[in-house]
């Protein structure tokens, strides 16, 4: 089903006209209200009036995640604080989080786009949506929640954790739609199986999964084990949250970007040059309608490609290929973004540990596991086991507290961390399908 037939099936020519109008309005708004952008545009000698056609987007400066951090917490907001009705934030060590704000209209738009996404995945009013995305500062939980309500579905705001209870509720309430990260879907399946609950016998029909990279083979596994249609959803808090792009259940080939609200580009992440449609590169997004924290050409660091060919589902919006990698060193652990630099900061703050560490990411069963290996130097070494174990649990606790992700800390000997060409290998990601 198409939730918003008018806007999701606009002839591309009309869509582009709408995008241009909105882009012109956006540039005028940020030039007027966001000193950061005014300065950047002035430096380039670009005035809002210079935006005459869509391709003029390349005149605009990029926005990086670091820009949000540099203006922590509210420095890039384009409206006064009283007009912000909601704040979300990505994980980060103190002062390093990226904070986003939404106006009343932003929240309405987000709900509508999430409703579109749920509909594209095959959900409709009357569905029972078991929403196992985390509620809180993370955008996943509340984003899907408002979308499900907008669609007219019944939402079960179960959030993350307490997996056995989730399996029980899923069975007892008879949920028809499951929203969670792909790895959690499989974890939930295993927990339910142990309790004697067979997903295939439940009314569950659709899984909508995102917030972490997954593969086609993982999709097959979820679909076979749970007996459902598994749909990929894309979003990031800087741009909005879940619902920026969604696969349609009909074709399942690429994610439809909500192009009337976001202007996508693919660039060469080295040179910053825009690449022709169809080429693979870094996805860059401009928020066309957002009021709270509108962003010009935000570098997502996600590697994808665009396809503007018409889709059999009837939508005319461009489709982005499933994200296949990152152009930076960000890791996604159980849906949580983790930068090695954040781990480094935590280690340095924990009794002055040396920054000699290594992150080992594995997937045991269906869940990501992160091990942080830290070299023990004379400053922290002790002749007593309890002191070293206390150090390990302190590191684990700090990582959990600051990043919201569970890690296992393992102390190793100096030089115990593999170095290639003198440079320490910081990340070993062994998650493979």
């Amino acid at each position, binding site marked *: 089903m198409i939730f918003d037939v008018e806007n999701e099936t606009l002839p591309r020519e009309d869509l582009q006209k709408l995008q241009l109008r909105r882009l012109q309005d956006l540039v005028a708004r940020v030039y007027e209200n966001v000193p950061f952008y005014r300065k950047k545009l002035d430096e380039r000698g670009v005035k809002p009036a210079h935006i005459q056609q869509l391709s003029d987007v390349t005149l605009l400066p990029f926005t990086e995640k670091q820009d949000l951090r540099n203006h922590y917490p509210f420095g890039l907001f384009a409206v006064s604080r009283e007009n912000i009705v909601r704040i979300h934030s990505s994980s980060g060590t103190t002062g390093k989080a990226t904070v986003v704000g939404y106006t009343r209209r932003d929240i309405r738009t987000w709900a509508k786009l999430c409703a579109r996404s749920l509909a594209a995945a095959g959900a409709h009013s009357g569905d029972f949506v078991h929403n196992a995305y985390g509620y809180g500062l993370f955008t996943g939980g509340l984003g899907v929640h408002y979308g499900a309500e907008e669609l007219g579905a019944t939402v079960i705001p179960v959030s993350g954790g307490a997996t056995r209870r989730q399996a029980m509720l899923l069975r007892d309430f008879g949920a028809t739609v499951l929203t969670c990260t792909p790895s959690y879907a499989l974890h939930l399946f295993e927990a339910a199986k142990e309790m004697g609950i067979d997903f295939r016998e439940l009314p569950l029909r659709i899984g909508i999964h995102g917030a972490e990279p997954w593969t086609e083979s993982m999709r097959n596994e979820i679909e076979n084990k749970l007996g459902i249609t598994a749909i990929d959803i894309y979003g990031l808090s800087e741009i909005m949250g879940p619902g920026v792009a969604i696969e349609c259940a009909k074709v399942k080939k690429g994610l439809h970007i909500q192009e009337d609200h976001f202007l996508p580009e693919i660039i060469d992440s080295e040179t910053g040059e825009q690449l022709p449609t169809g080429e693979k590169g870094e996805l860059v997004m401009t928020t066309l309608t957002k009021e709270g924290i509108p962003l010009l050409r935000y570098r997502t660091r996600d590697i994808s490609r665009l396809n503007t060919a018409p889709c059999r589902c009837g939508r005319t919006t461009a489709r982005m290929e499933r994200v296949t990698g990152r152009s930076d060193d960000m890791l996604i652990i159980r849906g949580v973004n983790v930068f090695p630099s954040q781990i480094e900061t935590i280690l340095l703050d924990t009794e002055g540990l040396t920054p000699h560490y290594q992150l080992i990411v594995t997937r045991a069963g269906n869940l990501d596991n992160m091990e942080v290996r830290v070299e*023990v130097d*004379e400053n922290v*070494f002790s*002749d*007593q*086991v309890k002191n070293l174990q206390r150090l390990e649990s302190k590191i684990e606790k700090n990582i959990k507290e600051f990043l919201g992700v569970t890690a296992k800390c*393992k102390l190793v*000997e*100096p030089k115990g961390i593999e170095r290639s060409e003198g440079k320490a290998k910081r990340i070993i990601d062994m998650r493979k399908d």
Partner: protein
Amino acid sequence: MKVDQLSIFLENRAGRLAEVTRILSEADVNIRALSLADTSDFGILRLIVSDFDKAKDNLKAGGFTVGRTTVVAVEVPDKPGGLHKILDMLRDAKVNVEYMYAFVNQSSTNAVIIFRFDRTDQAIELLQKNGITMVPGEKLYKM
């Protein structure tokens, strides 16, 4: 009355202990006493050696993290109740034993036990007052 103990951080994997003994052997350092504390992923090797500084320098050069800890070597009568009497007086004084291990001593009727106390100075004072013999480091290294 204090004794220097060398502590070495070891990853729990094959060959690490042998690497320590290889380095000490090549440096011509004798191990007088040892104990190994272990967890599932690491261990702490504690040694009393014939030459502390030489052992420490060579192990550090070999890439190990090492530390110096002050321990106390106590002569314990080699008969039933010998150790108990000492532990009893430590308990009464509320001195905690973090860990202890035996010292191999071939020439005397007393056993020597290495103690790591939470309050070393107080423990030494207490033992002295009660007439317990302690072996000074210089003597111990050469025993």
